[in-house]
């Protein structure tokens, strides 16, 4: 897919991370922490998704499979086997990577819409498995997942403690995304996105790069899902439903494809809207989400961060 990408800014790494970390550090004193944790999880999910769409140009319509699948795996490990949270998260990320390798291996053979449809189909299969397998609890979901003690020492049941942990995980994931993008590997991905035939003619094994991007994206998406399952102590079918796959597309699109912070902004906006609207307008939530989608696609393709970056670069930056 050749998404409309805003010109990338040249912000040094540490500016970005300091900024995000600062906001993250102050926020829980202003806003309800559990709500923030939800934003962080979805932000990580969206960043992972953006890696694949915004930078590799691949629209996966089945990312919920990684998000939800890892949520179940981590949940089960922590609840039934007594794994400590950091091990649970590692397992979740690992599962995401594994599933990503399978999905990627199957889907990358095709391009464009076919790629998306294969990912959708595979995700539906995962949904079906989640529905049928005993350990997931089917419609009830996997409930009562213990947060446990981090490294066996730090009790995560307190909201603030959990928040710091989630913030750290998020920053870690964001860092991975950032380093991936701003690396030779990332440059080649962008080249493939912008002009695949040329990349091939330059001798790059395009499929291998795509697959690797897919695995990284899936792994981080899995990490996001695993973290979410510990925050809410629940993994459910919603997490693997195609609506969730659609949601992350919306977050990324709204925030800004191909920007580092875009998905974060998009996730914050959508999660925020949902929370606020659920109380007030119930059924209109869906309509509003749809309107945002339509408006974004028609007039706002660069997304919030993209548009902001474009405004800034009119001040003379060169690309």
């Amino acid at each position, binding site marked *: 897919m050749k998404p409309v990408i805003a010109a990338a800014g040249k912000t040094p790494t540490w500016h970005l991370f300091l900024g995000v970390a600062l906001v993250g550090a102050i926020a829980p004193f202003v806003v*309800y922490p559990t709500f923030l944790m939800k934003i962080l999880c979805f932000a990580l999910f969206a960043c992972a998704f953006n890696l694949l769409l915004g930078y590799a140009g691949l629209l996966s319509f089945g990312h919920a499979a990684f998000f939800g699948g890892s949520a179940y795996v981590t949940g089960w490990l922590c609840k039934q086997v007594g794994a400590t949270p950091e091990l649970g998260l590692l397992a979740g990320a690992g599962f995401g990577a594994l599933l990503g390798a399978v999905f990627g291996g199957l889907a990358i053979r095709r391009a464009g819409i076919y790629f998306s449809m294969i990912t959708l189909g595979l995700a539906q299969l995962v949904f079906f498995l989640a529905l049928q397998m005993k350990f997931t609890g089917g419609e009830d979901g996997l409930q009562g997942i213990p947060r446990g003690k981090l490294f066996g020492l730090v009790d995560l049941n307190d909201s603030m403690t959990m928040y710091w942990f989630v913030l750290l995980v998020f920053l870690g994931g964001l860092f991975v995304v950032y380093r991936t993008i701003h690396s030779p590997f990332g440059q080649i991905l962008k080249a493939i996105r912008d002009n695949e035939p040329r990349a091939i003619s330059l001798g790059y094994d395009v499929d291998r790069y795509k697959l690797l991007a897919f695995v990284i994206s899936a792994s981080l998406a899995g990490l996001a899902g695993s973290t979410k399952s510990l925050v809410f102590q*629940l993994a459910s079918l919603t997490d693997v439903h195609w609506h969730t796959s659609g949601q992350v597309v919306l977050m990324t699109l709204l925030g800004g494809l191909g920007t580092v912070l875009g998905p974060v902004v998009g996730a914050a906006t959508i999660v925020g809207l949902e929370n606020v609207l659920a109380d007030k307008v119930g*059924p209109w939530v869906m309509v509003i989400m749809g309107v945002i989608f339509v408006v974004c696609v028609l007039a706002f393709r660069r997304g919030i961060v993209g548009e902001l970056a474009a405004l800034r670069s009119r001040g003379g930056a060169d690309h």
Partner: protein
Amino acid sequence: MKRTALAAALFTAFAAPAMAQISDNVVRIGVLTDLSGTYSDLTGAGAVYATEMAVADFIAKEKPGFKIEIVSADHQNKADIAANKAREWFESGKVDTATELVTTSVALAVMEVGKAKNKLLLINGAASTPITNEKCNDVTVHYTYDTYALANGTAKAVTKAGGKTWFFLTADYAFGHALEKDSTKVVTDNGGQVLGSVRHPFPGQDFSSFLLKAQSSGAQVIGLANAGSDTTNSIKQAAEFGISKKQSLAGLLMFITDVHALGLKTTQGMYLTDSFYWDLNDETRAWSKRYFDKMKKMPTGIQAGQYSSVYHYLSAVKAVNSDDTAKVMAQMKKTPINDFFAKNGKIRDDGRMVHDMYLAQVKTPAESTKPWDYYKIKATIPAAEAFQPLSESRCPLVKK
């Protein structure tokens, strides 16, 4: 500046409600329901309105010394949204109780949160028996009905009336399984036989193939262990395929709104068990008319139960002059319930509110004389019989 802040802090510390039993003298009731999805018609906005009615009536009649507030939210039948909202309500919203909670997965998830935060829960919409068995806890009241009562009512009556052989059409998720399991036991206990069952994906759209399987089994009764649009679709299609001519359908979970949606022509003669019917007596008619005037639909058992449970809760709060969960719960369990909704109602140790249930049969179009005149009440199932006896309970709270 600093001194003022210090002073303010000290003032707050000392003024802190050590005296008042009810936290900031406001009782906040949260209604967490499905406002827009599959179950919104049988509970949803109607349940919120029922809550408002209960609060208004309570204030008018009992003139309590505390204020009462209602907050509501749409959980969209998703356990995570519900748990998140409940958590937010309990942690920062100072909500004292979360109520309604339709959809089993939602109820179970919120039960975990309620237990962790020590807040009271009034479950009306959700149905599965694990709520008062394996998953029971001491902050939860399961008020309106459950799958055992449904099975015990409908399955028993139908089997006794001559429906000896059964075939189940089951929604393939926990609720459907529970309903099928409870009903199977009732059927076999009453001399019937279950010839087989088939599970359909949830939610389903086309049941023709499953119904044909039911048909080929030759069973006298096809038990529908599903709800909402699954039930209405199954019934519609059974009629289409002429299955209803030779076999009867038992809607194991049906509401008056489903009958209204399908029409009497399709549903006539069907048995169902309900916790409430608007046309039972003068009391129910009076209340239901008030409800109907606003909502333009007759209330379902869940909506009536919501009113009753909230009123009972408020009475308990007033009686012990506290919103402390344990105290209020003890009071609620001590006090019997006798209002337009429940006769001989009592909350047991496992959280189960037992009350009389009604076995009804849907009228034929000819028998129906006015709008919403849908049920013939065939029997009243007394509280002691309707629900699972404590002796069979798998709840750890029950002392045997």
